[in-house]
């Protein structure tokens, strides 16, 4: 698939305009009311602000919204209940300027959403959406993509990857057939491939920048974690944890959800799926009152292990893309790179 093309900043903007004109939804990093950047749907190309930092929350909400209806019910005469299926979200959309770590998270989630039972709302959005990522230059010291087998220029999850080549232009690498279709649909916006050396230099510098401050690789820590389920580490790490769900809310791969019924009127209502988080006691409590994850250390352990032990064992890949958002968002100052470095030190000492 790997072929490439070139696109200028103005043509990228033009591409967004073309898409909007064709009634394709365009989303990407844009300024919120308080000036910070978040992923949002853009009404005009000028709203997109590329490479302006890490958007506050990840890209996952375009595929797994914070709340979505699963179906509605209506009780009729004689106690008859009619279920009204929620229409599958199939509006075509293009994300422009996704961070590669966010795109990678979406692909990682395909596994859990698709094993055995297929989560149709997720895959309907996946199929309707083309992801154009922008290679990252490395953002700050909480970045750790290189510790989880990725890189600031990873193509995982992206359909098209843009790499800056100077002069406001990007080398666009076609990653998937969907990416190729986008290029083919708007040929006027793309030029013959160029800037291979510049792109390579950008990518190399970005990898080195992230690797310089990232913790050791998470993969080799698994045997130690398996052997030390009960370890004082979790108590220490969780002291400052408030048990809020900020980390999960901003995470590109935290996908746990709740299912609730909400009556609308007498006899009608909607069953919805909402974001949820393993960081609250309610998450795992049984009807009997018994709670297998009864304190914050157990819940912090669950979050870390789900990302670097449970998911890899189950689905063969990490459930962390190293985006660093959990560290940035934590009101208690917890830091995943620090926790991983600590585990690596313990594991190194144990060998």
């Amino acid at each position: 698939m790997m072929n490439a093309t070139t696109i200028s900043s103005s043509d990228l903007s033009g591409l967004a305009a073309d898409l909007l004109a064709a009634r394709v939804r365009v989303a990407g990093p844009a300024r919120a009311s308080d000036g910070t950047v978040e992923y949002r749907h853009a009404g005009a190309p000028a709203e997109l602000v590329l490479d302006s930092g890490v958007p506050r929350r990840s890209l996952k909400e375009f595929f797994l919204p914070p709340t979505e209806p699963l179906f509605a019910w209506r009780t009729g005469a004689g106690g008859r209940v009619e279920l009204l299926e929620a229409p599958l979200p199939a509006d075509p959309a293009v994300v422009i300027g996704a961070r590669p770590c966010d795109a990678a998270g979406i692909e990682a989630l395909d596994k859990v959403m698709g094993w055995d039972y297929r989560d149709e709302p997720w895959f309907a959005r996946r199929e309707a959406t083309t992801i154009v990522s922008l290679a990252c230059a490395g953002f700050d010291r909480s970045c750790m993509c290189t510790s989880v087998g990725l890189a600031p220029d990873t193509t995982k999850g992206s359909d098209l990857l843009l790499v800056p080549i100077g002069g406001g232009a990007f080398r666009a690498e076609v990653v998937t057939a969907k990416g190729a279709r986008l290029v083919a649909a708007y040929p006027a916006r793309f030029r013959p491939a160029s800037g291979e050396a510049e792109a390579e230099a950008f990518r190399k510098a970005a990898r080195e920048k992230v690797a310089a401050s990232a913790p050791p690789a998470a993969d080799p820590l698994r045997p130690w974690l398996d052997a030390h389920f009960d370890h004082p580490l979790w108590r220490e790490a969780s002291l400052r944890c408030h048990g809020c769900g900020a980390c999960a809310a901003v995470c590109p791969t935290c996908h746990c959800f709740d299912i609730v019924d909400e009556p609308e009127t007498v006899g009608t209502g909607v069953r919805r799926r909402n974001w949820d988080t393993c960081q609250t006691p309610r998450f795992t409590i049984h009807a009997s009152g018994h709670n297998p994850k009864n304190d914050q250390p157990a819940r912090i352990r669950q979050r870390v292990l789900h990302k670097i032990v449970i998911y890899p064992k189950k689905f063969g890949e990490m459930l962390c893309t190293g985006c660093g958002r959990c560290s940035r968002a934590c009101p208690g100052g917890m830091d995943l790179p620090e926790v991983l470095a600590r585990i690596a030190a313990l594991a190194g000492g144990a060998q």
Partner: protein
Amino acid sequence: MTELRELAKKLLAEGAAKVVIGWEEGPRGVRPAFATDAAAADRLVFDARCAHDLAPYLDRRRVHVAKLGRPAVVVKPCDARAVAGLIRETQVKREDVVLVGVRCGGVLADPEAGGTLSADTIADRCRTCDSRETALADHVVGTPVEPLAAPSRRDARVAELDAMTPAQRWAFWQGELARCTRCNACRQVCPLCYCDRCMADKTQPQWIESSPHGRGNLSWHLLRAIHLAGRCVDCGECERACPSGIPLGLITRKVASVVADRFGHKPGDDPAVPSPIGTWRSDDPQEFIL
């Protein structure tokens, strides 16, 4: 800083406290610290980056913190007001905690960015705080500080919202609250949100819809505003913690001004002064009761 560290070491050495909860340098600026020995006490810091309110760590539900033993907590004046609230509402016994007051001239609006405190960089809530040190503390450290004269942008924004038509105000809050995902960070970091089972978590009956849609978010933030009326100490943690950048301080500030206006009350650091929500007087204003 030396004074704080020496005091912390003394408290630990003499057994007056088993853990000193303060701040330390972390990977992204300062963060809460739990010093149980002299070495950790020597890492404690206090400066204008110490925005975190540490009072929530006294919450009885934080069993893993309680296990460390009798705590000493470093408190800014706003944090002391929070501890006073917990004492007033019988969540904490005054004699069960050692309070180390720090003299405070305000904290930075962006603690992570660091820098020096100035009329430009000071957090908005500190512009309207008139407390430089607390009388509730067992010990007070630091040098006396003068307040910075800086106009409150938040008060200006509240005034703008007040001047709006109800429809405009509705549109403004609909837009802001649409970003809420109900992660509960605002509740979890709030020192006064200590309920064992939050009303928003109750299902029988379900008072508040848990879905982060317009209806659910509006009811949640209204519930929170009302439950904190006259209790909120303006520590700013809810707004700092919100991963979606919702200006929750505008709500708490507005409610505080209503409480001050109608009940002549402002939450202080004296646990003996009751809060309006916990008392009844025959001359309480009632014109807002429908």
